[in-house]
């Protein structure tokens, strides 16, 4: 067991956890932030993407103890004062989600893209999201949502 302290969605968290606890397990099972999903648990699907210190990572393959002291943002931390983040709004407006399972990871990755590039082309969006698998949407409306968000952010 090891004590770690993190800032999750703006809140300070101090927990005693087993050393092998992954960030996704910490978020889901210990902090009850179940918006972060586990689709493969092996970094292959992207459903578990969260932001650590502003960068998107696959939380199923990061040990929580290695992130001691970090600032973490999950899907639950994007909306503020009841207002969804422009990327969330854009996914809703453009029908960028169906079953919703890959959505949190997709939204977090997409936000990271726009941090790196303000007005990405369709191809750049598709290339960036290559690590996030969606089985429902055929990606077309996800691409449209990212473009919509880019025009608002």
């Amino acid at each position, binding site marked *: 067991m090891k004590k770690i302290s993190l800032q999750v969605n703006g809140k300070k968290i101090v927990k005693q956890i*087993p050393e092998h606890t992954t960030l996704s397990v910490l978020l*889901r*099972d210990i902090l009850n*932030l*179940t*918006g*972060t*999903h*586990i*689709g*493969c*648990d*092996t970094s*292959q*699907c992207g*459903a578990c993407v969260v932001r650590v210190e502003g960068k998107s990572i696959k939380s199923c393959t990061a040990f929580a103890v290695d992130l001691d002291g970090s600032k973490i943002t*999950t*899907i*639950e931390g*994007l*909306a503020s004062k009841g207002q*969804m983040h422009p990327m*969330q709004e854009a*996914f*809703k*407006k453009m*029908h960028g*989600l*169906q*079953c*919703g*399972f*890959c*959505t*949190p990871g997709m*939204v977090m990755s997409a936000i990271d893209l726009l941090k790196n590039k303000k007005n990405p082309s*369709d*191809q750049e*969006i*598709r*290339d960036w*999201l*290559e690590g*996030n*698998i*969606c*089985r*429902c*949407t*055929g*990606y*077309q*409306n*996800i*691409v449209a949502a990212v473009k919509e968000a880019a025009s608002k952010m």
Partner: protein
Amino acid sequence: MASLVGSRVERKEDKKFLTGKGRYTADINIANQTYAVFIRSPYARAKIKKIDASKALKAPGVVDILTGEHIAQDKIGGLIAGWAIRSEDGSEMKCPPNPPLAKDNVNFVGDPVAVVFAETLDKAKTAAELVKVDYKVLKAVTSLADAMKSEVIHEGINKNLCYDWLLGDRQKVKEAFDKADRIIKLDIINNRLIPNAMEPRACVVDYNTASEEITCYTTSQNPHLSRLIMSAFGGVTPENKLRVIAPDVGGGFGSKINLYNEEIVCSWAAKKIEKPIKWVAERTESFLTDTHGRDHISHAELAVTNDGKFLGFKNETIANLGAYARVFGTVTPTYLFGPCATGVYVMPAAYSNVKAVYTNTAPVDAYRGAGRPEATYTIERIVDKAALELGMDPIDIRMKNFPTEFPYKQTLIHQVDSGDYVAGLEKAKQMADYDGFADRKKDSESRGKLRGIGVSTYFEACGIAPSAVVMSLGCGVGLWESSEVRFNPTGQVTIFTGAHSHGQGHDTTFAQIAADELGVPMENIDIVHGDTDKGTFGMGTYGSRSLVVGGIAIVNACKKIVAKGKRVAAKMLEVSEDEVEFKDGEFVVAKSNKKKTIEEIAFACYLPGSRDSDFKSPLPEGEEPGLKETSFFDPANFSFPAGSHIAEVEIDPDTGDVKLDKYTAVDDFGTIVNPTIVEGQVHGGLAQGIGQALTENAEYDANGQLITASYMDYAMPRADNFPEFQLGFTCTKATTNPLGVKGCGEAGSIAAPVTVMNAVINALDGREIQMPATAEKVWRACKENKKSETEAA
């Protein structure tokens, strides 16, 4: 009030999903829950000699370990085939027992043999390692082509043959073939796929020792049916003591139609160990044990005249059932396949013969499209081959064979109520700039690339399905749907449906149709689904049936509400019932200012009296209080969406890389309730269909090991695999339901594989390759083509 049917309403369910507040089964935890880990066969075929759990039982935190012996002792039944199919000779199909935990034999890698329950997941996993299973390994049957000649897998099922089924008339086909100018022959493989819903299967089960009720939260497309099977066939507990809840479900695509081993085992065990149980599949378990899709080998022949008229069609298929026959396993390659195998065409004679065989692989069942993608692939490949051999344009040969008058009696079974195939293909041709292809091909060639164009036209039978018809064909249940529309006294509406949404957007679409029927604002209408304790029985969601069957049940229940509302309004307004008209949520009396809103009527129905009313009820005599109506809708026929798709690919002959450059889909779904949602359904179906054509393939080695059991090995399509799809629609309304809707969920995955393959094969100058058109296969084909060219020169 403007109609909501036809409007691009944003989805009501999205906000919860976008803010991380969806509630999927794996998100549910119950105090003091134990964690289940299943011990699975590492062999494709073996006898279980002994299971020794003694050491594991002593491991820290272990609560219990159960095996097939315990299942047998408690007389817990197994998984079942939902459809009984008869062979051509009249004999019944042959199905092996499929116990939830194997006791004597295992028949595919992943077949569960035991389960460990422990206080934590880590402890359960550690203990599972200590369970010793002694197997006698037997030779696995993994080749579909050789399955009938291989060792018998299940005792008493000769040749591993479940059935040898025929639909159609062999003699008529022979006569048609005798008259033909030319017979086109085709050998194809419909590759095996893994549905891969992004949410892995899971269940969380609670047992209430006081009420003796079991509650099973699970990842299901049809919780009511799961409860029925678990109760009636599994014998876990009576239906009234079993509650099955499918909360938010992260995609299904057919793979979550079935009740699975784990749900029966955990429901039975929760009562046995008197503790809540949580089980969540790891992705590899999903690959190994979710039902797979497709997997056919077919030989088809088409008899044609020299000017391209079709005279007859025959099809011989071997279909893989995998190790066991499951709910839709036996019907998918028969009644969902055979009738559609003649395509949209006038086909004077046809038959389809299907031999379904068992192999030591995961069970094969319905996967998006279920039978219809295989049918469409067969006919649309052979039609293209006919065009090539006859020197005709692929569009011309199709146009020549379309039926033009509806209703149209299709060759095998279906009476197609409406359609306009000419209009669809014309529109697709325009949208895809078919005539500009020659220029684009030249441009590709100038860059050293090959370019191909592919066309397909399809129809499908969905809106599954008229009960009497399907039950006469062997279905074990009726396929109606139910709904209950309940007004609250204060005017909001709650609608219970037996359909289940796992991405389809029912909360929105169903609210749209009910808002139109009732004149109540959409935001005041809630849709409840997925809980056997809420609402009446229902048959769930698959086969593009939710709107076409479930939606109509909602419409019909709403109509009953309005009918009662009229009676009450007439009494309250002191007019006769036929003087009352209902419009936009108001009961009005013509040429007067007398009216009551539907909310006022609901209030009066629940509070039928008032302080000043002199004992007079607002309700007509004999009318019961309350405002709630139920409808069970059993459709009179299937529905028949149809469409024309056109794809263009560019191939790099040096690498074999296939780039899908353009994709145009024109579909006729009848009335469209929410165009945005429908487009999303088409996009998703296309992606899965294109995945089948270009990337996806489930592959077993000769020992029956699944060698594509992770996303590193199974090539799921990703965002960068697709161009922007161009969608168009035509509309001929269904005549068999009041909305005129036909269903849209499966169209993309039905049409896309063959459209893309026709384009690939066109680029390869007609050289046939099998799906998926991977770089290696395409590169080899390019090399062969080059060799033939050189030899010819």
